[in-house]
């Protein structure tokens, strides 16, 4: 989705009058709505936006039901699309209402410019600021050259104070908070689920061998079979090592929006289990900075891992700059990915940085890695649609987008990878489809 043209001043630099600004907001929201519908698979006619705008002009904004009916008649032409339309219309209507309310109450929040997987929440006190993408992306001069387990990346100044008790629907360029060396809770051990996932993802040959048409001759079995034919070897079976282990790269978004929806205990335990089960794995945490925590995850206990995080000055709860993180990993650890590597990206996709960097980074991973999977905590919701711009940009480059909130999600990934080669993803989750 393009940046909101309605959020800025007029082209000549002068401030817009409230009416014109509101009109721009509504137009922008409408175009975004049509874009969302198309992304969700609704068969919107090519000139749907124009007809929808005409329809809105006729029915007005006083009656939500009339506006819904008018837009539906202009944008939907299949009964099967009505449900999707109704669901997305709620978000559109909130955006429009916010824009119009903002016009009534100066100083309100420009929520229409935020395009998260869920609609942005209107702010009562205006403390949630509009994301300034340019500020978050013009670094480039980072000094990367550290060894593993060294804090790498760019330090941001002047961050915003975090707000307690508020669930972030997007990741502002917020202040990271240092990981406290506290004890983790006693959550379910995700190790069995990680083992199931490992079996499904295995790309590297292990010790066990299995019959294979293009393997090495299995002399022992050939001899055994020859007993039945009087000692004559009729055929030579072949065997090859079965892939039982995984070489991986795990990139974990620890921005505020992710941690508001994902249990940190579960996250740390899964990362530790991956480190233990996979043959080789390198793990990076990122929000606005990037930190490699591979060695810390090999610590004796989860609490030891947290203490190691503390020593590493690993931080979480900041903003999300996925593209920056990918670029950093590419520049500092290019050997972390090869053709046998499985890449897991844990993130909600609510990118606040430059989308082109995100696309470039994912294209690099897509070319270089065996498989790239995106684990999204938000996808655990049945109402989730990957319509935010980060996810929309990422999806062409990933082999599957899955939910990630509990061990059952890992089991479902394993189930899908074992039973159906393609396509896989959250939309094929049996729990989602009943």
């Amino acid at each position, binding site marked *: 989705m393009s940046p909101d043209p309605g959020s800025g001043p007029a082209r000549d630099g002068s401030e817009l009058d409230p009416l014109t600004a509101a009109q721009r907001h509504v137009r922008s929201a409408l175009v975004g709505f049509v874009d969302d519908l198309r992304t969700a698979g609704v068969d919107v006619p090519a000139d749907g936006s124009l007809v929808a705008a005409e329809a809105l002009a*006729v029915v007005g904004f006083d009656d939500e039901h009339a506006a819904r009916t008018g837009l539906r008649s202009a944008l939907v032409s299949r009964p099967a699309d009505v449900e999707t339309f109704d669901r997305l219309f709620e978000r559109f209507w909130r955006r429009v209402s916010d824009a119009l309310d903002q016009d009534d109450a100066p100083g309100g929040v420009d929520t229409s410019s935020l395009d998260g997987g869920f609609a942005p929440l209107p702010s009562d006190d205006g403390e949630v600021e509009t994301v300034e993408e340019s500020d978050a992306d013009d670094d480039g001069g980072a000094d990367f050259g550290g060894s593993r387990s060294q804090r790498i990346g760019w330090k941001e100044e002047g961050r915003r104070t975090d707000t307690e008790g508020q669930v972030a629907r997007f990741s502002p360029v917020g202040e990271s908070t240092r990981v406290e060396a506290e004890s983790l809770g006693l959550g379910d051990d995700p190790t069995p689920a990680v083992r199931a996932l490992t079996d499904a993802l295995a790309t590297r040959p292990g010790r066990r061998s299995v019959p294979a048409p293009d393997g090495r001759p299995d002399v022992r079995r050939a001899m055994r079979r020859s007993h039945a034919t009087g000692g004559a070897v009729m055929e030579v079976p072949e065997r090859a090592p079965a892939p039982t282990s995984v070489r991986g790269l795990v990139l974990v978004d620890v921005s505020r929006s992710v941690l508001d929806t994902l249990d940190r205990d579960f996250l740390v335990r899964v990362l530790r289990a991956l480190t233990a089960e996979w043959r080789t794995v390198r793990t990076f945490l990122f929000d606005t900075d990037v930190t490699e925590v591979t060695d810390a995850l090999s610590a004796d206990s989860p609490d030891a891992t947290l203490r190691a995080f503390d020593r590493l000055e690993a931080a979480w709860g900041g903003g999300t700059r996925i593209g920056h993180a990918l670029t950093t990993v590419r520049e500092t650890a290019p050997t972390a990915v090869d053709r046998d590597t499985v890449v897991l990206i844990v993130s909600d996709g609510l990118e606040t940085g430059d989308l082109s960097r995100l696309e470039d980074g994912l294209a690099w991973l897509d070319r270089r890695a065996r498989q790239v999977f995106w684990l999204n905590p938000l996808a655990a919701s049945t109402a989730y649609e990957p319509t935010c711009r980060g996810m929309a940009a990422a999806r062409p480059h990933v082999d599957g987008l899955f939910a990630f909130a509990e061990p059952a999600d890992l089991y479902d990934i394993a189930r899908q990878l074992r039973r159906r080669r393609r396509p896989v993803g959250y939309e094929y989750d049996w729990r989602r489809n009943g």
Partner: protein
Amino acid sequence: MTDDTHDDFETLTRERLQSVFDETDYVAEDEITTTVLLALKLGRPLLVEGEPGAGKTELAKVLATGFDTDLVRLQCYEGLAAESALYEWNYTKQLLAVQSGGREDSVFTEEFLLERPLLRALRHEGDRPPVLLIDEVDRADEEFEALLLEVLSDFQVSIPELGTITADRPPIVVITSNRTRALSDALKRRCLYLHVEPPSPEKERAIVQRKVPELDDAVAAAVCNVTGRLREEPLLKPPGVAETLDWARALTALDGAAADADAPLTESDIRTTLGCLLKEVEDVERIDDETMSALLTAATEDPSA
């Protein structure tokens, strides 16, 4: 294309349109009213889809009646061609004119042109634009849809021998489809879309009360209950609203006993008039004693329950 139609309906309000529906005994929810209002104000064709008997064709008839204008109907069928939908030359008359030898000019003039529904709607002369009903367009071939595109987008028809004929007053276009096949994107893009759901029991009861006012309200409720119960059976052709109305009229015509509120529907009433509701012999045979008992039970149920 002119905007005369647009101008005519520019001042049309939802209340006025709703009153048109009320006057013509058409039970329309807000969704139908709003969508029709948009189609009239924006001057765009209205594509109406839904189950058979949901009231799609009736909508066009109601608009023609309500706005006191003509209804031009084009019933689509497989193999429908331009000469049946647009225009045709009167070959017999042309032949006679040529054989008589008295003509200096061409025989391809207005004099020899036979108007078909689409052209007739475009050249309609009257105070108000007509309602053009293109009924069951999904029955026609895809080639016919292509032919419709020029008519629906520019409200004009190109006749090679005469030139382009443009509507002075674009008609109100209602296109219906039963969704037996998907329509082309190009056609859908030119239309506003309305999907008419099968009526709820309450709406069906209101329809029966309006269309068959001589039927007592309690009997109307019983009629709708029985029809609704029948739809729960695995029938080849479940009864639609049209069948419900036919049955209600049949009960009224058969007089008295059935139309009397104090006399409930009997098995005999239902058996003798079952042909109004079921149009397949297998469906009629499916109504055994057990099903009949269920129908009679449904007939006595309180509609408000």
